[in-house]
């Protein structure tokens, strides 16, 4: 798993690539925690993310809850396999996925 970020004022884009599983998820959580302060416009770019387990979903949901309080969150470029997971778990209904 690799994580990159692009910050533009209060807008932040976090790009995640590779596998988000139980082993790598804590790293993503830490990364988001360290960068989320003051962000009102968050974009999660999952173009290169080809796998996520419930550990990854947990963090996405947690981040969504946080962003509901301080701004908006948008998930973009979701691969079809991952999209199936989002659909299966009802994430598509509670998140903005483009």
């Amino acid at each position, binding site marked *: 798993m690799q994580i990159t970020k692009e910050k533009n004022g209060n807008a932040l884009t976090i790009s995640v690539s590779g596998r988000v*599983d*139980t*082993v790598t998820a804590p790293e993503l959580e830490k990364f988001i925690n360290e960068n989320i302060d003051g962000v009102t416009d968050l974009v999660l770019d999952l173009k290169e993310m080809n796998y996520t*387990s*419930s550990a990854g979903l947990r963090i996405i949901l947690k981040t969504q809850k946080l962003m*509901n309080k301080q701004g908006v969150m948008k998930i973009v470029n979701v691969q079809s396999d991952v999209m199936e997971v989002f659909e*299966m778990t009802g994430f598509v*209904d*509670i998140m903005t996925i483009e």
Partner: protein
Amino acid sequence: MKKNKKSTTLAASVIRGIVTALVLFSLLVSVIGFIWFAESLKSEYAKSTYRMADTAATLIDGDNLLKYVNEGIDEQYHEVKEKLGIFCRKIYVTMIYVIVVDTSDYGRFQSFYNTVYNEVDNTDYDEWEPGHKRDTTNDDYRMKYKAIYEGKSDYETVYRLHITDGKKQHITTLVPVKNSSGEVVGILCMQRPVSSLRNQMLQFLSTIVFIALILSAVTAIIVTKRNKKNFVAPIQKIAEETVRFSSGDMIAGKLGEISHVEEIRNLANSIDKMEEDMIHYIENLTSVTAEKERIGAELDIAKTIQENSIPNIFPAFPERNDFDIFASMTPAKEVGGDFYNFFLVDDDHLALVIADVSGKGVPAALFMMVTNIIISDRTHMGGTPAEILAFTNKNICEHNKADMFVTVWLGILELSTGKMIAANAGHDDPAICRKDGSFEIVKNKRGLVIGAMDGVVYKDFEIQLNKGDKFFLYTDGLPEATNADEKMITIDGMLKILNCHKEKSPMEILNGINESVKQFVGDASQFDDLTMLCVEYKDEECNNILTLDATVENLRRVLSFVDDLLEKNDCPMKTQMQIDLSVEEIYVNIANYAYGEGVGKAEISFENNNGEITITFRDSGTPYNPLDKADPDITLSAEERDIGGLGIFMTKKNMDRVSYEYKDGQNVLTMKKHL
């Protein structure tokens, strides 16, 4: 508890000592002088009194005295008494009286002349009438009366110096009164006060004490001054210098020749030298410590380089299912001379190396690096182990200035057949555990150690490994590990430990041995490097079962195990991801919860029955059915939704069937999916 003595200075204590000694001495001299003076004064006083009394006695007519006893006094009596009174006043004594003693027992006497002069000593005596009779006052008088009457002495003196009945201190001198025929008929007693005597004595005493004290004081001052110059001042200087130096002012001060007293001069010189030496030592220590730190840092880097010069990431070949390998190296010092190595020469050949360089530490580590590089390079070029060892020996010998040597065991395992060609340059024989058997030593031809002699020829030998066999290489640090009682593990002990773990994976076997060695050695320090390598030539059937410690860290191993099998079974990518996801959820659940805080085993088995994949998880942890948990409500809003609980739900959704049972003390979770 001992009371702390009050702190004092050297000068004060020296002066105190001198003054005390002198005062004691002068007091002693005064007392002795006084006693001597008092005795001679007393005796002189008694003598002069005697002479006065003797003179007075000439006034008394002894014949008349006897007459008065029998017939009473006459005219002449008054005349004599008158003279006696004048004499008494002239010579300034308290009392003169003449007595006639009853000689039967000297217990009574009769007084005739009695003249008193009270002014002398402010007394209040009354004069006795002539013929006044009295009993003798005490035995002292009685003895003396007797001595006078019997003519044994010319005079006697009675000292009344300790009087308690209110009378004044005095002496009484007794002289005989004789008649015309020379017989003693009476005694003249003269009482003389001692106040003047006492006054003289007191005057003497005060004078002598005064002089002694003055002399003491003068002596004390002189001695103190001399002491101060010769001892106290130099010692104070020394003390000041040491206080200055020890308070952290680390500059060598020079005391120099501060005294002509040899001991003090030596002390001062020693302190000068000690300060210089100490500064020198501290400088030395500082640079040595810095150097040590630098070497320590370099050793740390060297350790990292050495550790990374051999494969140390496990599983080393996660893509290979036909063998499993694990190795460990524990140097006695930061860096060691032992090493192992293993690498695939090609897809079908696995090279195994274990070696032990003579000596330990940095020299051994450098030698080890060189040897390892030569062996691995030469192995990649092809050839049999015997050829490789001969080549290595030749190269090492050419540059072996330090006369070091290294024992090497090198084997090349043909993975498709299990045939291993090996050669041994003086190394310990390996151990092998046949499938369903026990570990035992495999003895083979052993050649000379590498580096000892140029031109040595090594011989190849063959060991056939069968599926399920385990092969174990080690250095002598293992059988020769020694505990505090100087007992070694020995080869037999090593085999025993090995057999305790023989059912386990190579990694678990080595961890088990390391644990056992640690327990055996106890507090004794590790003397030799300890290096081990274990390879399992895996049974094909076992390839569908993975047993490991149920930890999150092992997740990747589980996934690669499953992925390898799925790929072999031509599983579509999408299905593989779904299965991966389910495997992760179930496995992580076991890793996190089955054994509480502890670590236990998990077994994952894989089956393919005509396109239906069955994956079964087994663990011996707390009985728990994860499928019992209610599915999360996925229609709720983000705010209302629980963060967890999605894993099992997704597993159920992704797999065709998921079932749980608790059987034979194990949680058994089975998931099925059609490809």
